Every structure is written in C-alpha cells, then in structure tokens.
C-alpha cells in the first residue's frame, strides 16, 4: 500500500474518533509528554490503535495521540515519538507528521531534549532552534516522491519559521523564561557522541545535538508546514570536558525543566495567530 493511502487510512480512522480539526501539531519530546494531559476535551488515541502507526519503545514516551484544545487552539499532540535509532525506517519516524498535515495542521511545534555544545549554554536551558544540520546519515525523502505530499526537491532555506521564532521570543519575554538560540545537529544515535565527535560538531556549526527532530522537520517542510522548534538542554556535551552520561540524568534535568518548558509552550500557543 502506498504511503499516501496509509496516511489517508490513519486520518480516516482519527476522524471517526473525533470531530476536532486541529490547526497546530505538537511533538512532545522526552519529559514533556505531560503537557498533553492539559489538553481540554481530549480525544486520546493509542498509537497501536491507529492504522500504520508504529509503536514507541522508549521509557518515558507514552505513545498516544491527543486531540483537543490547549490555550484556545485546536491541537493534536504526540505524547511520545518514534526515533530512527529504535529501528524504524525514516518513513515510519515521520509518518505522524504527514498524518497531522492531512488532518489540517498548518503549524508544527517540535520539542526535544538535547545536549548543549555551545559553551554559553547550561543544563536546564531552553533553546529556540534556528536551523539544523542533518547528520543522521540519511533523509526521510529518499525514494519515489509522492507529489500529493510535496515537491521532489523541497526548499529548506527557512526550515524553522522566522515569524514563529519571533513569536517564541516575545512569549519567552512575557513569561520571564530565558531562551537561548542555536543550530540543532540531528544524529542517529543511540550511542552518545565521543569527545572527538562533539568537537567536530561544534566546528561544523552546531550549538546542540540530539537524536530526533530533523527527520520530522524535513517532512514538515516537504508538506509545506510552518515549524517551530524548542529544545531543552538536558546536559552539556563539551568534548574537552565530557563526563559519563546516563539516560536517567537526562530525564532528571528534563523533569526539573518541565514547569518552565510547559509554561513557555503554552504561552507560545496562546500568542500564535
């Protein structure tokens, strides 16, 4: 079955469960899933019940699609996402983004937990993603192009909407949250990077790195969506000063940062046109 028909089947299924027509899509990264619990009049769908949706395997990722209202906006939120390192194909990783677009979503808000490469960052910082480096080693658009989704060669000159970045900066000021800015390097993982690799990434222009987001954002651009990306710096990844890191540490900082992250994302939703 073609990817287009798979997406249509998933969309048809979701529409039998809810009448809501979401305008904004939210991908909630490590530790931010709780935001979906604040969605009002929610329709909650397990990924395993949605046709062709893969199922999440990472601890801390719930694996549910939540549709409803948040800050007066009609939203669809992914509570848990799919990662390339889990063994999914890039088409599977980005499948939910295509479903969101065909549900009517025009704006995608992507969040994640990342490592800080820029020396001016510290754990617990939030970073507005200005641009990215695709260092995953592949691209979700390899294969025959589906013209109904977008062009063969999508433009990536503004992968993260400048207008939405301005909204986020104003929202951060309004709620008194400090917001860093930078370039997110997307790698496959799942091993963390070596000191030499981290130094290389810094030399290549990265301010932060992580194992998600980039495939989703490429596909969102392919489908003509406006994207906003916000990353939570959960640990510092300075090659010269690297210390052993565990997923538990990452989760702890993500948990501690959660209140201000949620406050900011809600305010951004409130401030969006």
């Amino acid at each position, binding site marked *: 079955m073609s990817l287009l028909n798979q997406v249509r089947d998933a969309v048809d299924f979701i529409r039998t469960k809810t009448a809501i027509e979401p305008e904004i899509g939210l991908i909630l990264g490590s530790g931010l899933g709780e935001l979906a619990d604040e969605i009002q009049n929610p329709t909650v769908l397990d990924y395993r019940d949605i046709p062709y949706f893969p199922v999440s395997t990472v601890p801390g990722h719930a694996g549910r699609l939540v549709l409803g209202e948040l800050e007066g906006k009609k939203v669809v939120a992914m509570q848990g996402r799919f990662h390339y390192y889990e063994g999914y194909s890039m088409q599977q990783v980005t499948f939910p983004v295509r479903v969101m677009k065909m549900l009517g979503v025009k704006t995608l808000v992507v969040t994640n937990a990342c490592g800080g490469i820029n020396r001016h960052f510290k754990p617990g910082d939030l970073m507005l993603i200005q641009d990215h480096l695709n260092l995953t080693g592949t*691209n979700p658009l390899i294969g025959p192009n589906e013209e109904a989704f977008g062009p063969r060669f999508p433009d990536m000159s503004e992968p993260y909407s400048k207008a939405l970045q301005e909204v986020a900066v104003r929202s951060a000021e309004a709620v008194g949250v400090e917001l860093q800015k930078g370039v997110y390097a997307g790698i496959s993982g799942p091993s963390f990077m070596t000191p030499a690799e981290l130094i290389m990434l810094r030399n290549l222009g990265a301010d932060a790195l992580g194992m998600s987001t980039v495939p989703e954002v490429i596909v969102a651009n392919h489908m003509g969506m406006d994207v906003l990306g916000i990353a939570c710096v959960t640990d510092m990844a300075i090659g010269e000063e690297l210390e052993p890191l565990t997923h538990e540490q990452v989760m702890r900082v993500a948990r501690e940062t959660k209140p201000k992250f949620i406050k900011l994302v809600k305010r951004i939703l409130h401030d969006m046109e």
Partner: protein
Amino acid sequence: MTMKEKIRDVLAALESRLSVKPDIALVLGSGLGGLADELEDAIRIPYTELPHFPAATVPGHAGRFVVGRLHSVPVIAMQGRYHYYEGYTLEQVTLPVRVMQALGAETVILTNAAGGVNETFQAGDLMVIRDHINWFHTNPLIGKNEDELGPRFPDMSEVYDRSLRALAKETAQALGISLKEGVYFGLSGPSYETPAEVRMIRKLGGDAVGMSTVPEAIAARHGGMKVLGFSCITNAWSGTGDQPLSHEEVIEMSERVKAHFTSLIKAIVKRMGE
C-alpha cells in the same frame, strides 16, 4: 547475480544495436541533456529497454543512452541518470557507468547541476571538479569486491584526472569561457540544504553541492576509467537565509548556461579525439 553478470546481460542487449564503439562516456546532468541531441548518427536506447535498468522518476531526466559521434569522436551519452534519492541502490546508480566502460569508453565526463557554496561563485558559473567529498554516508563499493571490475581498495588520490582538468581549462580559455575550479560535495538530498548546512559544507571544504556524481566517479575509478567532471552552478547559496529554491529555477539556470556548457564539452571532446 554479480555486477559482472549484469553488465554482460546489458551488453548482450546493447552491443548489436550500436554501430560505433564509444571512446568517451558522457553523463549529462539536470537541464544539460540537450548536448546528446547534437550527436551525429545517433542511436537512442531508453534505459527501460535494458535489463537491470530501472525507470527514471524525476522530471527533466529523460533516461536513455544516446550513442553517436561528436566531432567524429565516438561517444556514448547518458541523457538522464539514476540518483540515490530516488530510492535506487548505489549499485543501480553506478551500473550505467560500468556498462559504458565495458562498451569501450576509457574516459567519462560527469556533469551535474550544483549549488554554489564558495562565496565567489555566482549562478551561471561553470566549475571543473578538482576533487569531491563523499557525504552520501555510504559507498557504491560496499559489498563483496569483484576483482574483474577493480581492486578491493581503489586509490582516490586523483579521482579527477589532472591532465584532463588542464585540458578543460585551456579549452575554456581558448573559447573565452570563464571556468571555476573546485571541490564537489556530494550528498543524498532530496531536500535542499539548510543555511546551517551550507555553512557546514563551506567549512568542510566544499565549493559546490549536489546530489549525484560522487558514486559514479567512485565506480569509474574503481574500474580504472579516467574521470573529468563539471558542475553547472545553478544557484549561489549564501548560508545566511537564502531565498527559497525550486527545481524549476535549477532547470531554468542550467538552460541558460547550456550554450557555454555545450560548446565547452564539444571542444574538449574534439581535442581529446585529436
């Protein structure tokens, strides 16, 4: 089935239809395929008529061999090529180069449309490729090596033949065509580069960026062919938030430089035949 067996199958389907044995192979990139229409006594063979050749999927890529003479030099041209981003394996992408070598071509001229990363480049420039960077994150030679085709560890110290590059520069000068020289940065695509990626490519030493050529050059060198490469710079990336780019603009710009490109390649082929 081995690559050698596939090549043999293709030759069996191809050789009886050809009246000349080509000396030079030409791979014509996006918008540059028109050169193949200038071949004399041309025989056109769509890829779809050949075993092991899949159908091309991109608009602007015709997908056929054109075999004939250019300034009386026997050549075989690829009007349209296979790209990794279309979902083909790199073995499929590079099979045509292997076939052209097996037909007798000792030199391949690889051409492409590319984005300018070097800040001194402008849209419409022509660049002779001095070297490349393989950023496909894979290699067409991964797998069991077929020793009849080439060595396990092919040398890459001079992928783009120094004397052919010198010939290209002399020829361009004689024709009054400005010719840049630089490093081609090959990646999969198909999404175009972000501004941050453009700046990264510049730091890594790329002068032009595109989605082809590198696998073909690796396979050609593996087989011992001489390689000459040209990029038609269809847009200049600033890396600071560029204007959006469409495939149509890329094709339009290659159409505009086609005249210079065509006369340069023809003159080079003529001098190579002398």
